[in-house]
């Protein structure tokens, strides 16, 4: 059945882990948050070599021809390592919306692009790393210039206002909607990866830190909070898989929204809990925990807030005309 992750997908995930770990793992995000973009660029190059940037591009166009399930497998790893950079924009959103030449350059990593979608993703991420910026609307794409960078809650993210700098090209609204859903799915996968990492970090710390003569992981007050995180993450995961299998079908939008809501809620619970388990050390910027704590909040509000996604589901399931069963 489609619900089991394949050997190839496992291998892809491991390859991504190896590349990021060979560059020092969280050191890349750490450098980005201190204003040093060089490691992020190096990571981009290596992940491009691996084919990650062409994952959603047809083989005929120089990509890997991956499926949406491959996409969530890969992006979960990026979230797990808090990898910095406009991966969602370059690898998931833009490939189907730009001209073939740029598509090929995106696939091989020679071009890095970011985008804003007014009213949805108002600021473009990390233009300082990019060769191109675009404003995407429901039916058009326009080359743009990036304004000065603004700070995010996540120090490894820099946000830019865009202003048009060229003629708009018309796009098929369906293609735009699909591309946005694909990037949103990627963001949900990053949230899930970040949530899993937060849980792992919290559990590891709970096994080490001692108070009152015992490791704090013995205390039920913490155990049960951590168990709740496990439950939330475990039940967000199948929604992502379901959404990946549904992408581009009539129920694709609401499945996507369900995945984003569940991944955001689970990741935020993981963040709150991980911080509480760490105590004051988790409240410092110096501790790596801060990388995911802040990333989770950035990603939860980007690519559609949970309020937006809940209302999209409501529009689908709560219309008097169509009483849709969850099984339909």
């Amino acid at each position, binding site marked *: 059945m489609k619900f089991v992750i394949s050997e190839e997908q496992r291998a892809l995930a491991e390859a991504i882990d190896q590349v990021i770990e060979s560059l020092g793992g969280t050191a890349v995000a750490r450098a980005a948050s201190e204003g040093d973009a060089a490691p992020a660029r190096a990571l981009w190059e290596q992940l491009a070599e691996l084919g990650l940037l062409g994952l959603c591009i047809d083989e005929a166009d120089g990509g890997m021809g991956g499926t949406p399930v491959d996409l969530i497998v890969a992006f979960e790893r990026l979230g797990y390592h808090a990898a910095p950079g406009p991966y969602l924009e370059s690898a998931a959103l833009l490939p189907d919306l730009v001209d073939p030449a740029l598509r090929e350059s995106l696939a091989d990593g020679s071009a890095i692009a970011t985008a804003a979608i007014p009213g949805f993703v108002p600021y473009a991420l990390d233009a300082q790393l990019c060769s191109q910026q675009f404003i995407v609307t429901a039916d058009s794409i326009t080359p743009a210039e990036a304004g000065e960078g603004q700070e995010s809650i996540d120090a490894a993210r820099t946000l830019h206002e865009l202003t048009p700098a060229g003629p708009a090209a018309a796009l098929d609204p369906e293609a735009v909607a699909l591309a946005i859903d694909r990037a949103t799915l990627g963001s949900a996968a990053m949230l899930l990866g970040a949530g899993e990492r937060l849980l792992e970090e919290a559990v590891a710390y709970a096994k080490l830190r001692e108070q009152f003569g015992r490791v704090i*992981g013995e205390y039920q007050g913490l155990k*049960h909070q951590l168990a709740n995180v496990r439950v939330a993450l475990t039940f967000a995961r199948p929604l992502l898989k379901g959404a990946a299998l549904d992408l581009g079908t009539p129920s694709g939008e609401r499945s996507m929204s369900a995945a984003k809501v569940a991944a955001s809620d689970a990741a935020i619970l993981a963040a709150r809990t991980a911080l509480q388990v760490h105590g004051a050390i988790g409240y410092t910027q110096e501790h790596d925990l801060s990388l995911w704590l802040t990333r989770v909040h950035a990603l939860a509000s980007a690519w559609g807030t949970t309020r937006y996604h809940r209302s999209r589901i409501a529009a689908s399931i*709560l219309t008097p005309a169509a009483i849709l069963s969850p099984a339909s």
Partner: protein
Amino acid sequence: MDLDLTEEQLAFAAEARAWLAENVPATPLPSMDTEAGFAAHREWEAKLAAGGWSVVSWPEEYGGRGAGLIEWVLFEEEYYRAGAPTRVAQNGISLLAPILFGHGTDAQRERFLRDMTDGTLIWAQAWSEPGAGSDLASIRSTAKRDDERGGWILNGQKTWSSRAPWADRGFGLFRSDPEAQRHRGLTYFLFPMDAEGLTVRPITQLDGTTGFAELFFDDVFVADEDVLGAPGDGWRVAMSTAGNERGLSLRSPGRFCAATDRLIDLWQKNQDQDPFAQDAVVDAWIKSEAYRLYTWGTVSTLQEGGDIGAEGSVNKVFWSELDIAIHQTGLDLLGPAAELRSASAEAGGRWVDDYIFALGGPIYAGTNEIQRNIIAERILGLPRGGDGRKAS
């Protein structure tokens, strides 16, 4: 969503749907935890069996269809969507039968299984005791060897035994080795409810019905043929039931999907524009979807030879909380009329009844606190202890 179902599987689901549409009673049966309701539910089991739908996953020789897990999940989805009656035979079919298949003797399978398929033989579960709830291994009811008669003599008290007021037989654990501690020296017995020396005292539940009972054992003789598994090996045998209860078999996703459908209907009817109510309905839908997809994932894992293990605890916490959330939302939507329970109430008072039923979920089948302990210790690998429990 495309689940890769085969033609045969789709045809199987269609056949079930057609049969259920034809046969599910138009007016809901009275609660199975009343005398009349119990009898009506027993009859329904016979009807299901006559149609060949009572135990689809069992082998054909015992009245099943030899259907796989996928077909079982499909059948359950259809069953709940059709609004079919609660399964009064569930203790036997879902919890005991897997153990009879795995640990029973041929003679036991011959004696019991077929009668369990058509409502002739309904079982009560008898684990808990007044002093042994979450800490089930502290069981004090005893079984004493009686070599002369070739069996055992049971004494002690069991409680909260579901279906016991009208069940035909019960199954439970008794301490057969007085020297042994905790999980050791327990034996699994299958006893008739009308045995001499066994007194059943029904207990009225929160909803006013008698869904469970206390059992008093006063020198109750049980023959060797009614011991399940080896004497002294009862804990291991019983724990395979616990896994079933928490995992797949107790709460199929169809149940929550159907309740969510009813919740959506209720929202449509009330057209409640309160955004908080709307969010709660949407969240119920998201979580029912998550549970349905998770179950398909579990089915895939099981089919590839994996097992559920401690994941069953993650599952149990999720469905029991989901059940409460769905029904709490239903009551919220009903507003000031939510407390009404009589026939003229919305859906004949079903929202209240189902809400009260849902409230038991975090307590039975191992409380959710016990499940969280299991998740923390066996899945996350946190150290045991901190609450006075000793390593087992």
